[in-house]
């Protein structure tokens, strides 16, 4: 079926507007999550300054619990984030926002790769409590979190701009 060009443009404009608006909200949500993750990593990394305190066995227990808690938190955050992002990409696809979709597809693939590649015993990618404190894993995860935060923030403003642009132009 072929829509009247004007109707079609109107529809796509509306849809884009909707999608972008949603995008903004979700983006905020995701940025929020990223911030949460970054805080979590910082918490992981921050050592207790008093080494005597740290070497005390009672403290060891706390510390271990802490690491486990943070890891489980991070693991819980992973799936929602990935699914929201995938949902997004599907909506962009429906709204025929090719440019936005193009921007998001690399991240989508990265997410797929990361999710399905995780080995059972958890290497660096799965926020595995025994492995996460290895410096290279920790640094990798932290970098990833920062990069994603930057990406989400930028896309937030981009979506905002796009939405306003579509609103104004239609």
């Amino acid at each position, binding site marked *: 079926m072929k829509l009247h060009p004007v109707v079609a443009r109107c529809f796509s404009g509306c849809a884009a507007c909707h999608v972008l608006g949603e995008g903004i909200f979700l983006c905020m949500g995701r940025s929020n999550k990223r911030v949460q993750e970054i805080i979590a990593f910082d918490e992981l990394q921050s050592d207790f300054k008093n080494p005597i305190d740290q070497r*005390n*066995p009672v403290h060891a227990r706390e510390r271990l619990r802490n690491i486990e808690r943070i890891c489980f938190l991070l693991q819980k955050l992973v799936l929602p984030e990935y699914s929201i992002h995938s949902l997004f990409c599907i909506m962009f696809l429906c709204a025929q926002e090719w440019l936005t979709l193009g921007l998001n597809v690399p991240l989508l693939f990265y997410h797929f790769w990361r999710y399905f590649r995780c*080995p*059972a015993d958890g290497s660096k990618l799965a926020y595995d409590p*025994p492995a996460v404190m290895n410096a290279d894993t920790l640094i990798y995860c932290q970098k990833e979190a920062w990069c994603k935060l930057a990406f989400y923030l930028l896309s937030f403003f981009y979506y905002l701009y796009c939405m306003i642009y579509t609103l104004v132009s239609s």
Partner: protein
Amino acid sequence: MSAPAGLPPRPAGPAAAGYPGGPGASREAAAPQAGPPGYQNGPVQNWMHLPSGYGSHPPSYSAPSGHYSQVPSKAAASHLDDQYRASYYPPYYSAPAQNALTPSVATSVLHTQESQQFYHKTTPQTVGSAEGPTQGAISSASYLITSAQQSYSAFGNHYSTSVSSSVASQGFPLNSDHYTMPVVSGAMYPHVSYPVAAGSVYGQAFTSQSLPAVGQFKETNTFSTQSTSVPHSLQQRVPVGYNSTISNVSAQPVQDNLSRNLTGSVAKVNNQINTAIDSSSTTSSASPVLNNYDALEGGGYPETRSVTSSPVPAPAVPQTSKASKPFGYGYPTLQPGYQNAAPPAPVQPSNLGHHPGFQHYPQQYPSVNQLSSSLGGLSLQHSQQPESLRPVNLTQDRNILPVSSVPAPVPNLNSDLRKLNCSPDSFRCTLTNIPQTQALLNKAKLPLGLLLHPFRDLTQLPVITSSTIVRCRSCRTYINPFVSFIDQRRWKCNLCYRVNDVPEEFMYNPLTRSYGEPHKRPEVQNSTVEFIASSDYMLRPPQPAVYLFVLDVSHNAVEAGYLAIVCQSLLENLDKLPGDSRTRIGFITFDSTVQFYNLQEGLSQPQMLIVSDIDDIFLPTPDSLLVNLHESRELIKDLLNALPNMFTNTRETHSALGPALQAAFKLMSPTGGRVSVFQTQLPSLGAGLLHSREDPNQRSSTKVVQHLGPATDFYKKLALDCSGQQTAVDLFLLSSQYSDLASLACISKYSAGCIYYYPSFHRSHNPAQAEKLQKDLKRYLTRKIGFEAVMRIRCTKGLSIHTFHGNFFVRSTDLLSLANVNPDAGFAVQMSIEESLTDTSLVCFQTALLYTSSKGERRIRVHTLCLPVVSSLTDVYAGADVQAIVCLLANMAVDRSVSSSLSDARDALVNAVVDSLAAYMATASNLQQSMLMAPNSLKLFPLYVLALLKQKAFRTGTSTRLDDRVYAMCQMKSQPLVHLMKMIHPNLYRIDKLIDESTIHVNDRVVPQPPLQKLSAEKLTREGAFLMDCGSIFYIWIGKNCDNNFIKDVLGYPNYASVPQKMTQLPEVDALSSERTRSFISWLRDSRPLSPVLQVIKDENPAKTDFFQHLIEDRTEAAFSYYEFLLNIQQQICK
């Protein structure tokens, strides 16, 4: 460094043979001029003067010398003074700040004159010291000195030191050593480390290492008495020298580093000293008193240690000369290639004075430190290049194995630092010369990492009881021999360079009962020390030793008959279990239900409590399951006697391991301790049940090996819980079929336990395994144990640790949490260089292991390792420690095969060889590209990697059971280097002609030393008998036509045919060959904690395949022979 400044490439052939005629001749000429005065003057005279020359370095020499005499009375004042300084000056720069403090108006003229004056005095001294052994060395030294003198005016402050370093580079190590070291310790006193000066006090600690060392200490001591007797001349000289320093050095924040380096490179000991020390240390380790450490645990300093005979100057002299001889003569014995290659290097600095090109130097080396490191590098090349860098043509050299075991390379440090350095058995680095930058490290294509064996059984360990443990205030490093004392009251951390105060208590030396000698404290004299921690280090009282045994009693287990062995061993060793009066013990057995044993004191017999609700496990009587070993001893004995027969008629085939472990965790969580789990089959009930994942048809697959990772994370989570409650789980897996070790191992991996695996265990059908279990248990039950431990690894700023290998939980980026630590656990660490190390010439690593001993004391064992930094690729190769590299690669390969795939890991191993050899061949441009060359230090690299590829863990194509493979991988991650190397590359000896071999004497026993044989069937002759030492097992292979006398004398059977199939012991026959063989085997056994099992193999024996699988140089259906492997590498390099 100075490689660009005209360091000639190492000549490979005889092209440079003309060299000795050139500069060498002028050296000869210089010799007679300098020689005689040395004799006339005599060393004593010179010693008095020389220190003043050195005195130019300590920035505040006069001040501390004031303290020195007066401190006891003026302690308070000096303390104040100290505080003031510390607070006023930024810690980092306090050395220069000190310089600024003192009035410094030095005219350079005065400076020059003064130091030249010193200089002339130095000359005869050095020569005097060199008297006798090596004419060449003397002449070279004097030659250097004269030339350096001319360059002096430009070189300013580091004049004297740089000279000493170039002297050293001429390679007459111990001579200069003896004389310069006292100088350092005397004059640079407040400045550098004093290791040797104080050595005499602790001489005892070194005696087992080498005799010459003692001689040196005595020498030193003579000196110090002399120096104190002439304080006047010292003080007069000091100010001048001091001022002169200021004008040049005040901008050097790391100045003491420099001087340390320069004096550090003073003495080079060539390989002979290594071997000398090695052989003597093996002799001493031949009788390790494994648990005798407890005797030391008593307290402070056992008096015996300080009972060094008071040094008598007179006998020291002959000893010194005796010691120095081999080193002097060592030089000419080096390979011809060495002499060709090396000489140009040291000439460079000494020629500076003459050369017009000298002008460039100041620009090229704007900082003194750079210069110092470059000089250090030069001297390094000279002394070490030859042996470790001599190119070896791998495809042509067929006999690359050394005669005896491969020694660890000795870091290229000066001899006093080297003597203080940590033993390579407990602390080893893959590169003994640390590259300056990450770029250089990447170029070398070698992994950088540490191999640790921190809790090793030691026969000598200084234990320090002190209310304050001196540590750096910013990085918390423990004070160690490589810190520098800026003056008497302050020391500079060698890891973060912060200047710290020396606490008042530290001024008093409890060993000598003297005051004001912080540098002679045992902490500063030993790189391996143990502190007894004060109450600051614990919030809860130290936990008691708690042992829980979890035993599988299903039908399968009873059938295998392990229970009897375990109970018997426990009964025998009940009194030897490490612990104190609080020691507690408990037992749990399980099949499809979990059985607890109430052993409460007062019961007439042990009470069995059965919990069949395995889905929700609970403790029937929480209080009486873990009982005091001493109070309930009789009940425990009753139980152990009854246990083996209690389940003989059981029909229960299921095994509820998971619930039993949960119960154990609940039982242990209030205290923490050790859980020993004995499991004989796949857990089939309750939480953590597993299914068979192995496909027997895939055992010899060459493609994919699956299921190396765990099937469930139940065991990992439980292990983390245990780790949090300071409980370690040790797993003994005694199974005949597949039991998914990959999953079960997690319980030990993350709780810092250990894993033992006895494939196809059966008490009567497999006596070798039964005997092994018995021996392992004996060791396991009686060895030392540390509870609630943490280990932190610190390294010099700029280096960072990024991955750990071993059994532990990583709690922070540099902190490992170890619920238990045992003496057989090894660890590996990968490192990277984050910041360039250009402004330092030494890096240090410190491992601190805090644990609760079985006696309920909190203790800290500290190891410190010091290594030089180099800036050229050749030096990096020169310092490569091939065994450590291979072990680290094995650890990395295990990780890779779990996270990625086995074939990936194998490729990575091959690539490691290919890349590093290619990189080496690219640097040595004069090598013929068509040949496969390796530096001498890495000549065993391809062989070891091939051995790794044929090891059970990584081999493909040969039928390997999944559990065997996984167990080999676990071993790689958790074994210390020594054991791992035997696993990877066993030692093969021919033993039928031991009477003819050279021998050593150990504890009144004659131990023959047969040479190492290649691991190749070509070495096995039918006429011989061979012993293969695989670490945990000894194979004796007997050829068909072996001499009947040997079979009769050693094996106790009349001929070959009558030797039984399953022979695990050698009879005590009263014959020389028998005696020699037995003493050789027991000598090999003594060198390791686990006593290996002996297996005699005849040709028809089924164990023959095991033996032949270890002949890794031979071709198998699935793998290359060594030669083919080399060709393969060569092909890949050329690609």
